[in-house]
């Protein structure tokens, strides 16, 4: 019986998650709260990528905001252009009056197909270029973490500096439609939520498959003993690159879904602080477990909304303190509490049986 339960636990868990996401949440939450929940799920999608790159690959990705932002801006640019109509300029460009023609790099985003492709391919391409240069020269550990963080910071600074064509620190906001559907209609907003929930579940399943594949084993081996893997004839740079690119793609998709769900993308959402906050949720939940990072990301984002509204100061102390305690004394995160508990129970059972 227990063996059966053990084997069926993962599929049963995913079925339960699907019921929660698709049936209970839309039934129980108001439209406003469902919108907020959609936002948490976007952060959870980024966290799934972090579980792959950091939890299993050992690359501390402190700059996921970069890829989140690239995906988000690609989607936002398309939505702005779709709102403006054929040949029109986005409203903020008319407002500043600095650009009389559309910049050339905005032009391709008129096409929905190009925008959708860019959401996935731009972050992945960018990550491939960065990763190729960085991993090939064996830049790793703290060096990699600081470099990736600096890249996210530089991207935010670049966006703020180019106010006339990117909206500057205000970002892109005030969207009317999403691929022809009005975002003012609550039914369509609900559909956006379902798209996000389905994407999250699909990516969780995909990442779980990756973890259990031969590649997943290789990735863990590279994390724990890179030199031994190299001596066995593999190229650790390529193994790490694949995980980094995949996590960048997930962050890009999350950013693109974030835009219709929340209605804004701005440099403040992708700089150093939000980039680290992606990692905080993943770390508190349990960095190497798909379910752990998702629950951690949702819980931290939810607690932030609820507590920071009422006690902004206390929330910061609590978040910082929780983060310090979990990382320092419970590196496996909340997910490892379950294992600790079952192991202890198994030990007591063994003792009583003997």
């Amino acid at each position: 019986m227990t063996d059966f339960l053990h084997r069926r636990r993962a599929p049963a868990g995913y079925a339960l998650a699907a019921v929660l996401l698709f049936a209970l949440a839309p039934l129980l939450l108001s439209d406003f709260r469902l919108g907020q929940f959609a936002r948490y799920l976007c952060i959870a999608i980024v966290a799934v990528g972090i579980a792959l790159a950091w939890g299993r690959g050992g690359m501390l990705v402190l700059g996921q905001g970069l890829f989140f932002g690239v995906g988000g801006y690609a989607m936002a640019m398309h939505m702005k252009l779709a709102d403006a109509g054929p040949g029109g300029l986005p409203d903020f460009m008319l407002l500043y009056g600095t650009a009389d023609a559309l910049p050339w790099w905005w032009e391709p985003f008129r096409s929905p197909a190009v925008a959708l492709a860019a959401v996935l391919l731009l972050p992945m391409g960018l990550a491939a270029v960065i990763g190729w240069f960085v991993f090939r020269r064996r830049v790793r550990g703290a060096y990699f973490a600081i470099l990736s963080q600096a890249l996210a910071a530089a991207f935010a600074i670049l966006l703020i500096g180019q106010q006339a064509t990117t909206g500057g620190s205000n970002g892109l906001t005030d969207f009317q439609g999403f691929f022809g559907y009005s975002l003012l209609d609550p039914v369509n907003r609900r559909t956006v939520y379902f798209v996000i929930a389905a994407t999250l579940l699909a990516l969780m399943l995909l990442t779980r498959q990756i973890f259990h594949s031969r590649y997943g084993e290789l990735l863990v081996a590279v994390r724990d003993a890179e030199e031994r893997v190299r001596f066995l004839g593999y190229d650790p740079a390529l193994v790490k690159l694949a995980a980094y690119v995949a996590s960048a793609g997930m962050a890009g998709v999350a950013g693109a879904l974030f835009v219709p769900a929340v209605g804004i993308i701005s440099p403040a959402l992708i700089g150093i602080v939000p980039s680290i906050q992606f990692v905080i949720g993943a770390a508190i939940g349990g960095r190497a477990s798909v379910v752990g990072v998702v629950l951690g990301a949702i819980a931290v984002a939810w607690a932030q909304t609820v507590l920071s509204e009422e006690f902004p100061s206390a929330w910061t102390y609590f978040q910082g303190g929780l983060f310090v305690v979990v990382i320092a004394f419970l590196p496996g995160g909340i997910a490892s509490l379950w294992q600790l508990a079952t192991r202890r129970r198994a030990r007591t059972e063994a003792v009583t049986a003997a």
Partner: protein
Amino acid sequence: MSIILTQSFTGISIGAVLLLIALGLSLTFGQMGVINMAHGEFIMAGAYTVYLLQGPLSSAGMSLLVALPTAFLVAGAMGVLLEWLLIRRLYARPLDTLLVTWGVSLMLQQLARDLFGAPNVHTEIPGWLSGRVTVIGGDDPLTLTHARLFILALALAAVVALTLALRLTPLGRRIRAVVQHRDLAEASGIATARVDRITFFIGSGLAGLAGVALTLVGPIGPTMGTNVIIDAFLVVVVGGIGQLRGAVIAAFALGVLQAVMEYSTTVSVARVTVLIAIVAFLQWRPQGIYTLRTRSLA
């Protein structure tokens, strides 16, 4: 010609600030391998020390001079406390140290916000630092503010003092021994845990000094540490682990590059270009300008 000269002087004064904020890090990160994200908040603590001392000490010049040793002690004490409470448990997990100290920095920022308020505060600049010197006269004069020269002098003095301390004193010899081979140092009778703590005290104290210097060129606020910490880390990464001269060269090189790029483009484009230059440089020398020769495989 004059433009090149002006830009390189601007670059050197940017580099002096970079050097001062990176010097403490090159000791804790460079020598000990501890990535302390709260280093920026130690800088902030140094800056607020000046702000607090200007209340009781009415003279701005006096308070600045008193603030230099006080800020060193305040930031150093914070560093020792952090090392004793958290970091010494995490020496084997460098990436986790990064995250833990970031959590600490989050709390320290909020503490500053609660104690001093979220808006930036300003301090008086002493009279003897508010003038400028004309280096080159003529139609396009090149002038330097006294404050920038003071920062340059302070940075160079700190480098010289630190180098001499590491080279000549028994403590410096112990620090170098621990950096080069921790196990062998311990076997030779050096109390490595104590050396670690003293190194951390000096590194964090230097952050306090940098904070005092920053009050001369910018506002003091709860987020000032976050704004400078990345630059400081990049200086250490480019300079290379374990060598102070690497940090000195890297700080001035990055400062001049930043100044030249800012002159020919905008500030934001300059920042991005400098970063791309750093990534390109790490292609050529992944371990920075100076590397400690080891037999490790990396």
